[in-house]
């Protein structure tokens, strides 16, 4: 039955170049297959992503065009400072994001284990996974940076080579922090496997604190001076710390500014040569770092992988926390299964560092921003509008969490149907438990954040109450959308929550959530704005006016929208989940 092995099928070592060629072919095959499948099965999603990206790019371009026109008219030299501050911040973020991505790609994925058992060089594996991490960590930078730099070029009437050089400059720049992130990641895993998480957390924490501190130092000043010329001057002098000549961000900023410059007689040759020199500095440093990265990989990759395999996950044997116990025992016996399901989700959330850390980071940063809005002085109408904008931001951040973490919950539960299916639990209770978990989990931080924002803005109590009601409406609606669509369109084959969230159902949930937030904020903000406008023009008399009625009607409309967003998807989801056959 089995033919004897062919004598010429003897394995032989291949060159480093051949290994790279094989990985390149692998990448091409995977990309071809993925894109082909997307075009066959997810045209709507692809079109939506392209459309939203174009919209995002266009909006950013418009925004930056206005900003550069304004700044250019004030202080032309300010641009260099802004570029340096922006690119140096991104540089720090790229080191961490690439390091984290490479940690997963080089060590923890099944592919990493497969590659470690093949006769392939560690440095080639590093290069292969680096390219992946480089792409994932740089596309956001390119999407954000390219409209900014294009707008800058347009405002400064830059010669055409500037526009051609934008992408090479950005790519060469990103490669430097990305490689550094990879080197740090490999060193941490190989030499400090037990400390790596703590070290990473400490490093991320320190970087965040440093960046916040820098921003605080740069922007903080007495209320009266805010946005004045003196305030700008003071802020910029503090930001000059980012203009260190040894930083790649300075090479990038200087190169781009040179590329966009013209001499007084209109010639560009000298400036272009200077720009190309800066590009050469970036490229050569990126290449040297790549060589260092490959050497580090050759020495440390397999060692690190072995160190990581050696670790035994901590086996926690803690007793049920008092809160879990209280929750599971409170209420009637009939509601106990529902409460137990919520306790289970709560425990999973607490033990999943990726969930609560993102929750803490995003809401923490939002809290910091709200805490600092008091730096500026506002008129009543302006403060009210900023309050609504802040409400929308809270809603948008919550919607990313409900889409990323709540939407996949039903799909993941579907995979565990053999457990839940055998328990005396009603299927409806599973769906309701997710809704209550999401609603209660969202309402506390969101309402606190909105209260903080409004207090710092000095908003009147009735408007704070209105914002809080809107916040409750948003929390209920966003939870209903995520849980309802999650139950209506579950993906039972996928095990990764992030992949479930990035599927069609997740995209739809995010789009509907965004539209819902916009609708709720608009129907309440517009009447409030009209009321303030009426007051300013002296139309409003004491007592119940037409403008007040408008505000009340707006609030009623928001509540109706909230009820629709909560119950419509939930009813559809409950129906579908009752019929679900895993």
């Amino acid at each position, binding site marked *: 039955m089995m033919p004897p*092995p062919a004598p*010429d099928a003897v*394995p*032989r070592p291949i060159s480093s170049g051949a290994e790279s060629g*094989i990985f390149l072919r692998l990448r091409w095959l995977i990309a071809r297959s993925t894109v082909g499948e997307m075009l066959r099965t997810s045209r709507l999603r692809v079109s939506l992503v392209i459309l939203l990206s174009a919209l995002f790019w266009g909006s950013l371009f418009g925004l930056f065009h206005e900003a550069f026109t304004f700044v250019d008219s004030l202080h032309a030299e300010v641009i260099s400072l802004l570029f340096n501050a922006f690119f140096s911040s991104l540089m720090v973020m790229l080191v961490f994001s690439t390091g984290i991505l490479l940690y997963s790609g080089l060590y923890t994925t099944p592919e990493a*284990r497969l590659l470690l058992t093949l006769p392939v060089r560690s440095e080639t594996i590093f290069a292969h996974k680096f390219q992946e991490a480089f792409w994932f960590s740089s596309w956001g930078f390119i999407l954000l940076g390219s409209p900014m730099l294009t707008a800058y070029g347009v405002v400064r009437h830059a010669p055409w080579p500037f526009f051609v050089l934008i992408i090479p400059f950005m790519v060469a720049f990103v490669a430097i922090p990305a490689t550094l992130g990879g080197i740090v990641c490999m060193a941490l895993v190989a030499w400090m496997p037990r400390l790596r998480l703590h070290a990473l957390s400490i490093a991320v924490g320190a970087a965040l604190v440093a960046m916040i501190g820098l921003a605080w130092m740069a922007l903080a000043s007495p209320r009266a001076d805010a946005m004045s010329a003196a305030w700008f001057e003071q802020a910029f002098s503090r930001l000059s710390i980012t203009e260190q000549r040894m930083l790649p961000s300075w090479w990038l900023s200087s190169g781009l500014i040179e590329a966009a410059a013209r001499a007084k007689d209109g010639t560009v040759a000298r400036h272009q040569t200077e720009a190309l020199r800066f590009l050469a500095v970036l490229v050569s440093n990126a290449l040297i770092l790549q060589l260092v990265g490959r050497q580090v990989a050759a020495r440390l990759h397999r060692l690190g992988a072995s160190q990581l395999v050696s*670790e035994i996950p901590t086996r926690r044997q803690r007793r049920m926390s008092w809160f879990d116990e209280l929750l599971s025992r409170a209420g009637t016996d009939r509601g106990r299964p529902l409460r137990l399901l919520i306790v289970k989700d709560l425990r999973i959330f607490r033990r999943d560092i990726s969930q609560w850390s993102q929750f803490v980071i995003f809401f923490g940063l939002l809290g910091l921003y709200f805490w600092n809005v008091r730096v500026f002085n506002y008129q009543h109408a302006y403060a009210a509008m900023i309050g609504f904008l802040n409400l929308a931001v809270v809603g948008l951040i919550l919607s990313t969490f409900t889409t990323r973490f709540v939407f996949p919950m039903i799909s993941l539960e579907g995979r565990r149907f053999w457990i839940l299916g055998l328990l005396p639990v009603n299927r409806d209770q599973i769906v309701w438990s997710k809704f209550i978990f999401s609603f209660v989990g969202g309402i506390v931080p969101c309402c606190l954040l909105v209260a903080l924002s409004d207090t710092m803005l000095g908003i009147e109590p009735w408007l704070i109450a209105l914002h809080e009601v809107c916040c409750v409406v948003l929390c209920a609606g966003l939870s209903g959308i995520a849980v309802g669509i999650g139950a209506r369109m579950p993906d039972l084959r996928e095990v990764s929550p992030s992949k479930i969230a990035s599927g069609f159902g997740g995209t739809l949930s995010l789009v509907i959530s965004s539209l819902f937030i916009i609708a709720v904020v608009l129907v309440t903000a517009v009447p409030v704005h009209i009321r303030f406008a009426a007051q300013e023009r002296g139309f409003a008399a004491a007592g119940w006016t037409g403008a007040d009625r408008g505000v009340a009607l707006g609030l009623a409309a928001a509540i109706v929208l909230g009820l629709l967003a909560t119950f419509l998807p939930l009813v559809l989801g409950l129906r579908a989940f009752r019929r679900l056959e895993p």
Partner: protein
Amino acid sequence: MIAFEGVTRSYGEKLAVAGLDLTIPRGELFALLGPNGAGKTTTIKMLVGLLRPSRGTVQVAGHDLVRDPRAAHLHLGYVPDEPCLYEKLTGREFLWFIADMFGMPKAAAEKRIAAEISNFELGEFADDLAESYSLGMRQRLVFASSLLHDPDVLVLDEPMVGLDPRSVRIVKDLLRERTRGGMTVFMSTHTLAMAEELADRVGIMVRGRLQFLGTVVDLRARGSGSVEGAGGGESRSLEQLYLEITSTDGPGSSP
């Protein structure tokens, strides 16, 4: 062909493998048995280069897995308990990827791929994306990929998981034929019947130590005091003997 020399591996304070000395010659099928947590997976991970020993050396075809992993891997084929494939590659593309990684000439690779697709009856779905495969189909594809380069050593971690009876038969026939042809097989398994049917020697590992090393006949002899069928004392089943050796208060002794 495989040599563990004084291999010790610890996880923190826990000793997973303690002073393992084991040599497996060319053409032998060796089955490693033991209860969960005995150190079988750690031993296999060291044998395929995923884990470095805390002390001692592991060699495949004379190549040290730590000092020269690439040279050792050229002689190794590995079938893990959880097959890993690229979901967006077809089975055939995956086989080509593996063949290329082992530096097989194109013509030879083409022949070998066709042969393995036929051996493991993969033809029907070889051009479908791996994401559509069942566990059994995945396992068969990984088997095919591990044999493409005709390795000197084949390492199998729970090889029959997910395979249907027909596939199990194919694999058993293949293992017999390849070991006759000189391939060394190192297999970890919980299935005593399979070890009994296929293995030239078995090792029983308990708490990181080899408590028994020998043939199945030796094992039976050790249990009954005489070789089964030789008319000696009361013979016990292989399962009983295994349970005695692996029980925490059993009689286990060093090999």
